């Protein structure tokens, strides 16, 4: 089976102490080396932990921090020391609590793996603003986090005593690693939830030259460190000293954090105990070659694959017909990403072997999303199509980082087939994804793509607004008391349709209906309820998905002369992003481009006529987005049409002002109201 790992942590929220216990591997080929390191370590001088610092008067008296206005806490100092010679990693923090919320930092949770490492030398104290010191005397608790058959993770938890607003929280602890465990190179996550005044990092690496162990000079990547640089100090330790670190970004609609958060990452890009790679290029060249060999082997069009292909396609089919037929065939397989993975006991009982080749997937009529994607490649290759597998970093989790020297950052497999000389990107592993489209997390996603000899780093294209549409048509009948009832039809394509169809794979249709109605609540005016009627084509990804919904309730307000109602039935609630926030620090990621079209016909109650048509709106943000609203009055009814299109996915923060301005105009335009005026008694309206 193709190996896949999603353990890259660089897009995951960091734990409170901003240090994650590294994962461990015992490298069988390096046991001798580890033993040598152990022998070396027991004679090396112990590394001293940072001593508690005497607070300055300025620190004690601080009530606000001009460098972090409004912050509930600031880090006065942080220190992380990684020492491979003595096999430990130590953390030391000094935190000033400036508001109640900052007290939450008094509780410290330190994850660790019993047997592999120990948490030692825990010390802590709280210093009140008057200088009174209250030491940590309660013994920290050692709590099991989870335990499976052969693995357990625990956490050491302690909370500092007597914490007040104005206190300085100070604590330190040390991970002491088992000497027989391979200790991965550290990653320094420089940004914290709060502003940091000063940080010090150090990494004392094992040096090369030990018997049978050769480790490359540590490669490291600095991602935005305020101009500070990592240096190799006189003790041959990598160190970084940095001041005035802003808090980690936290805004709505941010892209994945892995490329936004400041960090220094160290790598040991060695291949074996005797072969190592000197730089990033060598690493990627090597990784690409290995990856290419692996996927080429898995997708090899064996005789069995050729036989299967012959049953799916006809020799007379065009390339596109072949591509589509194979796509349809693999879409029908049991995709365990949307069903469930069989347990060992089941596989044993059903005599199912492990999957090693694409052919195995077909034989079992079941596979993971990645296995099915690669089966598609194998079948397409057997059909004579020009096709390449691609493995990308999912954009809902992270962005491919060329500086992060690890193929573990790669997530899902896709297929790129060449039809009429053009690349067509396919997502066979995403059940219910139409031919020729990708799940949005796979658009604008980078990763490896197989080329003639090896693999290259490539990016998938973005989608356009035409590929994601939400068309809403409603016929609504009003009565004189302000009640409304009618039918709405929602036609969806692209990511929205895919979402509901995939939800239906993991839930029954009644549950999908409930969730659909719940999702509509933000689109209905106050006082109006919706009841789901039925879906059309929920299980057919080749056509648009339609939902039919009945709406009823009380709409607008009735006065002695007028009836006032929302001009845009489905847009009367404030639901647009970027309207209130006037500043932006991080890029904007709206996931995918899209288009909405509302066509709502109000059938007027008897005795009322339109006071005036809605003023047409035309809000345009050139090359980016537009909103157009207009209305048409006919006898006894008014039809309101709204088109909103956004043809971008990612934006630079420099464009935020334009985005903010556009959405403010949209938000206000969507609040337009329709006024009906009472007419002489002879006037007639329509009723359902």
């Amino acid at each position, binding site marked *: 089976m193709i190996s896949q790992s999603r353990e890259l942590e660089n897009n995951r929220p960091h734990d409170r102490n901003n240090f994650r216990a590294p994962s461990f591997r015992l490298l069988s080929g390096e046991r001798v080396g580890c033993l040598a390191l152990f022998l070396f370590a027991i004679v090396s001088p112990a590394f001293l932990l940072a001593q508690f610092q005497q607070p300055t008067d300025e620190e004690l008296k601080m009530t606000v921090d001009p460098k972090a206005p409004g912050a509930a806490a600031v880090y006065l100092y942080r220190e992380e020391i990684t020492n491979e010679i003595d096999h430990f990693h130590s953390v030391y923090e000094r935190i000033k609590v400036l508001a109640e919320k900052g007290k939450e930092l*008094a509780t410290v949770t330190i994850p660790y793996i019993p047997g592999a490492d120990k948490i030692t030398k825990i010390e802590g104290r709280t210093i009140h603003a008057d200088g009174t010191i209250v030491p940590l005397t309660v013994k920290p608790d050692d709590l099991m986090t989870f335990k499976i058959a052969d693995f357990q993770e625990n956490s050491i938890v302690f909370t500092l005593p007597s914490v007040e607003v104005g206190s300085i929280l100070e604590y330190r602890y040390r991970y002491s690693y088992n000497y027989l465990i391979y200790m991965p190179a550290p990653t320094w996550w420089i940004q914290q939830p709060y502003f940091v005044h000063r940080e010090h990092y150090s990494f004392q690496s094992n040096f090369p030259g030990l018997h049978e162990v050769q480790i490359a000079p540590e490669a490291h990547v600095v991602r935005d460190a305020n101009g500070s640089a990592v240096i190799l100090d006189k003790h041959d330790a990598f160190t970084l000293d940095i001041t005035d670190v802003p808090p980690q970004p936290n805004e709505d609609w941010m892209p994945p954090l892995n490329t936004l958060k400041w960090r220094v990452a160290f790598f040991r890009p060695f291949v074996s105990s005797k072969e190592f790679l000197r730089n990033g290029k060598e690493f990627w060249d090597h990784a690409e070659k290995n990856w290419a060999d692996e996927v080429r082997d898995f997708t090899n069009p064996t005789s069995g694959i050729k036989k299967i292909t012959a049953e799916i396609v006809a020799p007379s089919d065009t390339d596109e017909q072949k591509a589509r037929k194979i796509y349809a065939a693999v879409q029908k397989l049991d995709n365990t990403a949307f069903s469930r993975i069989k347990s060992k*006991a089941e596989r044993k009982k059903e005599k199912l072997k492990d999957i090693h080749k694409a052919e195995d997937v077909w034989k079992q009529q079941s596979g993971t999303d990645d296995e099915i994607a690669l089966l598609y490649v194998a079948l397409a290759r057997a059909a004579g199509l020009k096709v390449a597998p691609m493995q990308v970093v999912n954009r809902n989790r992270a962005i491919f980082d060329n500086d992060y020297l690890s193929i573990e950052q790669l997530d899902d497999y896709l297929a790129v087939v060449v039809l009429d000389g053009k690349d067509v990107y396919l997502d066979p592993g995403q059940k219910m994804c139409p031919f020729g489209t990708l799940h949005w997390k796979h658009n604008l996603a980078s990763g490896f793509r197989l080329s003639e000899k090896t693999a290259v780093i490539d990016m998938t294209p973005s989608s356009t607004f035409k590929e994601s549409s939400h068309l809403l048509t409603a016929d609504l009948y009003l009565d004189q008391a302000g009640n409304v009832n009618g039918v709405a039809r929602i036609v969806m394509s692209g990511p929205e349709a895919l979402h509901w169809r995939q939800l239906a794979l993991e839930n029954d249709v009644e549950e999908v209906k409930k969730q659909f109605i719940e999702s509509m609540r933000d689109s209905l005016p106050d006082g109006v309820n919706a009841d789901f009627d039925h879906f059309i084509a929920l299980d057919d990804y080749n056509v648009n998905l339609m939902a039919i919904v009945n709406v009823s309730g009380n709409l607008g307000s009735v006065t002695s002369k007028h009836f006032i109602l929302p001009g845009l039935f489905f847009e009367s609630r404030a639901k647009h992003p970027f309207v209130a926030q006037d500043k932006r620090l991080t890029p904007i990621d709206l996931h995918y481009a899209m288009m909405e079209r509302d066509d709502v016909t109000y059938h007027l109650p008897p005795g009322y006529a339109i006071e005036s048509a809605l003023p047409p709106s035309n809000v345009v943000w050139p090359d980016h987005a537009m909103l157009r609203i207009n209305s048409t009055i006919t006898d006894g009814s008014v039809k309101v049409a709204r088109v909103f299109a956004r043809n971008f996915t990612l934006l630079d923060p420099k464009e935020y002002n334009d985005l903010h301005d556009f959405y403010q105009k949209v938000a206000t335009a969507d609040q337009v109201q329709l006024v009906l005026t009472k007419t002489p008694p002879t006037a007639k309206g329509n009723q359902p």
Partner: protein
Amino acid sequence: MKISLSSATARLFATALLVFFCAPCPANWFGGKQDPPQWGLDAAKTPTPTYVKDAASVILYDEYLETVDAQGRAVEREREAIRILKPQARHEGCEVGYDVDEKINYFREWTIAADQKQYQAQDTDFIDKGDNGIPIMLSTRKTRVVYPPAADVGAVIICESEELLEPYLKETVWQIQSHIPVVFQALEVDLPAGRAHSEAWHKFPPVKPVEVSPNHWRWEIKDMPALDLRDVKSRPVWEALAARMSVQWGDAAVDGKDNQWRALGQWTTTLEANRPDPSPEITAQTQSLIAGAPDFYTKLSRVTEYVQKNIRYFIVMRGIGGLQANHAADIFRNRYGDCKDKTTLLISMLQVAGIHAVYMPLYDHRGVVDPDVPSIMGNHMITAIELPADVQDPRLKAVVKAKDGKRYLIFDPTDERTPVGNLPSEEQGSYGILAAGASSQIIALPVLDPDANGSELKGVFTLAVDGTLTGSIDSSSIGPKGADLRQFLKYTDEKERRQYWEKSVAYSLPGVTLDSFQFIQPSDLDKPIEFHYKVTARQYSHQAGPLLLVRPRVIGSYAESFDDKPRIYPIDLDATGRWRASFDITIPPGYVVDETPDPVSLDLDFASYHSSVSAKGNLLHYEREYVVRQVELPPAKYAAVRHLESVILSDEKNAAVLKKQ
């Protein structure tokens, strides 16, 4: 988040995952490879009844056996069979909770797949999980979960487990209603000769037990529907509505509800005895606080506010520590603790101040603790402060009278912002155990007068010809409403507050800009908290031909969502209170008010709503008052609630019509 008072309670509210516990035991937890038990095979043959409707799964069989030893300690065995009916239930399994004082003797699972193939869970299908989901909690409790093989639609999951329960609880709470339907369920309690038991039923008619052998009792229930509150508006908490039964076999297994409650209160009194003993440091701090206090209220409020403001909320649950408080001296020194710790320190400090107070265990939402169902079940601890006979201070509103004639002020020190004398809204109308030794009893918590809670909102605005509205809003909040605001300020920083208010204001005023905002938060909790802010809303008014439409209710909403469905559950109105708002809008030059909405006046026994719009010169004035007098109503009142909410909603949407002069 408040602590669980008992591990039995923690078991009680298992949701889609089905909690279960058990009796005697083999050598290991999995018990080795075995064929499915006959009871499981029989259960798997149970047809799926029609009343399951659209449930994702159904419990076909669920049987508990509590075997109690001479010391009153129980071993619990559970046998359970669940049929998966829909794909979303594929991830269901069974789980067993345990703590440091408990032991799982065995835990096995088998699956009978839809094609009748049989599987047994292996050790790799089990996982133990720590209770670490809450950052401010330290808990030794763990859960063992099984992920059954072949758990697909049509499969029946069969679980059996046995667990030695904690030694200090002598009660079981049988949760007979779940989020999914149950076809057959049974509880057996096997007691030593001579040990008495008592039972009580909540939201379900009592079922008579069968004595299957001497002092071995069995209750059976068939065809229990699911309790699904997914789309029920204004509902009480799920736990208040779910049917359950409690069996006592300890000191509370006596005749008469009053005696049972007294025994439970006595148990708490004994458990927490000496915990509040004041240390010299506590004594010194208290004496310093109350020095010069001119009256009872001042003395009391200085102590309560000290505990509210200075003891950081941090939950510590180590075995019996989930029930028993730390010593007051430790709590005072560390300045942190959970609800029972805060109550302990408060009792301790009040003792120094010469004020007697006792523990009051309860559930933190009304409706769960049932006066007819004596039980230790709950999740919170508050304080009952005895009032001297001569104290008649109107600021002390949350006062109850015990059967012995003593008056107690009910106070929640864990709620860091509700002033002494008042009571958090969700606890009003609830019941708590007055743990006063031999005088213990169950006691109803008061529902406070509307004037103890609410807010007043005043806004002054100017409307420009282009429809832009600018203005300022001043609000003032008291009681639990004010406490909510204080709590929000406590747990947010400046940036989060701005973001929250921008979104909140934008709900009423789409496209609004929050120009400035300021909170004024007096340190005394019984003083109103003020919020002042300025806004600009573009295109607030809308042109319709020669008319300009203006919504006089500029900001804020009292309306709750409602529906037309038949109502079978009580209606929870959340809080009593009085909310007022008034807005003055200066209309643009050249316009006059052509039409205003009619005034609204609705008076009901449980609430009232009044609003009016008037025009004077170029000023459009809107004002309204909403009063809620009760917190919970019977289902029959839903039509009245619906009417009230529709009136409020309609008033909030109403527009005034301006026309050009």
